[in-house]
């Protein structure tokens, strides 16, 4: 930001700085809540606010006790394990089903394309409480509530719209003459898919998978209704922590989750750039 041009009038100048100040405040609103809890998770005291010692950077005021708390707490460890089990299983299912569907949806001649797309995206749109209530009734009749299977199926349904959207978006620029070329050279459809199409749409597939994983990893409403104590995931455990016995351990978990989401975000950004490069949209 180079500052206002030298010929700027005082009015423009004040507008220029005023506008940037306003934007800075909005960015602060976006980012501050996330940044504030990171240092607080190192608080030596069981409070949710900065102590005098922390403000004067006294090393005694900081500690890792809440992180030790996570490691020593069976419930937290169990919920972390659950989150990964449910997340990974539902991601694999959602990505497989979603990618296949996206391949079909990318053909403009697919009959009732708009209606099908509308149905496939709906899990993203319908309020979670309605999804959770409906699934609770249905799955309890099948005796699938309080089971891993039920939770994985539910999270798969919630994750597929993201896969469908990202993969269809990747396929928009896909040159179908490549698959025709491969087939005319004697490759069967399966081979064509894995050797020609898959490498090109892979960035879209992976980012869809990441979205599906995050959806499952972050989901709590369906878990609240469908999971038993045995299937508690991280968000469910945090929910209980916030509602029942709020302890700074939650802040430590939150900090770890933020770091985790930064990793995911970076991965996604790299994939996006790779995708653009593959499709020749940008030089970099």
């Amino acid at each position, binding site marked *: 930001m180079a500052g206002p041009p030298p010929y700027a009038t005082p009015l423009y100048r004040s507008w220029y700085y005023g506008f940037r100040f306003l934007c800075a405040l909005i960015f602060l609103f976006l980012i501050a809540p996330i940044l*504030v809890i990171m240092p607080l998770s190192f608080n030596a005291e069981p409070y949710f*606010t900065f102590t005098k010692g922390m403000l004067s950077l006294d090393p005694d005021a900081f500690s890792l006790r809440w992180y030790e708390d996570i490691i020593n707490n069976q419930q937290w460890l169990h919920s972390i394990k659950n989150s990964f089990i449910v997340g990974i299983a539902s991601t694999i299912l959602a990505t497989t089903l979603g990618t296949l569907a996206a391949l079909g949806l990318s053909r403009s*001649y697919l009959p009732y394309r708009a209606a099908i797309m509308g149905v496939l995206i709906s899990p993203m749109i319908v309020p979670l409480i309605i999804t959770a209530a409906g699934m609770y009734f249905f799955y309890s009749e099948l005796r699938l509530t309080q089971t891993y299977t039920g939770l994985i199926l539910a999270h798969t349904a919630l994750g597929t719209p993201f896969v*469908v959207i990202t993969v269809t978006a990747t396929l928009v620029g896909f040159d179908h003459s490549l698959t025709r070329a491969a087939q005319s050279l004697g490759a069967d459809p399966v081979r064509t898919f894995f050797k020609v199409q898959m490498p090109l749409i892979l960035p879209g597939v992976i980012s869809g998978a990441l979205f599906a994983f995050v959806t499952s990893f972050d989901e709590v409403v369906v878990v609240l209704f469908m999971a038993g104590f045995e299937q508690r995931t991280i968000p469910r455990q945090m929910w209980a922590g*916030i509602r029942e016995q709020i302890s700074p351990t939650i802040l430590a978990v939150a900090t770890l989750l933020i770091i985790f989401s930064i990793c995911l975000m970076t991965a996604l950004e790299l994939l996006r750039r790779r995708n653009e490069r593959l499709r020749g949209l940008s030089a970099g």
Partner: protein
Amino acid sequence: MAEATAGKIVLTTADGVPLKRKLRQTQQLMKRRAFTLVLPLLAFIGITFVWPIALMVYRGIDNPVLSEFMPNAAEAVLDWDSSQSELPPEEVFAIVARDLVQARKDKTVGKVATRLNYELPGSRSLITSSARKLSRVEDGPWMEAMLKADSDWGKRETWAALQRIAPRYTGSFYLAALDMTYDENGAIVSQPENRQIYVTLFVRTLWVSLFITLACALLAYPISYLMATQPLRISNLLMILVLLPFWTSLLVRTTSWIVLLQTEGVLNDIMVALGLIGDENRIQMIYNMTGTIVAMVHILLPFMVLPLFSVMKTISPSYVRAAQSLGATPARAFWKVYFPQTVPGIGAGSILVFILAIGYYITPALVGGRTGQLISNFIAFHMQKSLNWGLAAALGGILLFGVLALYWLYNRLVGIDNMKLG
């Protein structure tokens, strides 16, 4: 190959099939192949998602309790013409009494009591205690016996309520969700004043969602504009500030608002330290509507910024420059030239934010306290606490209808194909 028949030339393939038909066959095949690819997911979503939700909406009119657990009584009560007499005749009393005793033996009388209680609050013990007392009565006259068991059996409203829960299907849950009910003559009337909560709640949810949408639009506009007009390197950096909250767990963000806003929290501490407020009158900013709105605006803001930014990025700066060189003031050039081009972005973002806000559950439940609850929280309440599943289904059905209407609108205006993520 071409054959001339009756002056018309029909093109055929090598094996003699007319080209048109062959083309149609190939197209059919391709359509079928594309559909086969979509089918697994379509079936999966149909079974695990659409069907359960359809069942839930159906549950809002489903009324199995009386017709299942006291079938004879349900039939008898329905046959009784309530306009003819104040109370049903002795034989109806007899059938109901026998069914009550039978339901007690089957251990289903509690369910009947709960169901009647939704219709006529405070009538739970009427059923359970009458069933207990009547099981000791050997023989009629049953009307006398029932009136002795509980004098409420002599009230017309008891029988009217029983008559309302007797049919296999009922509109009473959906009516209750709209603060209406049947009166003792079967006409639809509003609930008494002190029991009218849901319409207010729906209206409140709508207003809160509108307010949140507006707040998101107002906050998203300047920063999207800034990002769209900066060089790529800077706008990418600023984008991280938008995407980081977007990717951070919902519960983490809600937790951080609790930490920031609670009375012993960071923001109050700062204000006390600056001397803006006294230590004794810290401001209650969370566990009320303020907390719900602040946290929801924060959570939904990225959903507004992303579509707005992607629209603004495509607007060429030369339009505004042209307007200014033609003599427009910067404000006029912005309003007449720049702003209209950003309207599609605002529309897309607004509908998305509104749809998400209207069904929000977690944040109001955690930071809303008593006054910051929205319609979703009441659905959850009836699902988990009061166990009035019919009412929960009806409230959910109405909410779902509203959301689907908005979704349809979004699809018409923006198109789901254009939905962008990240």
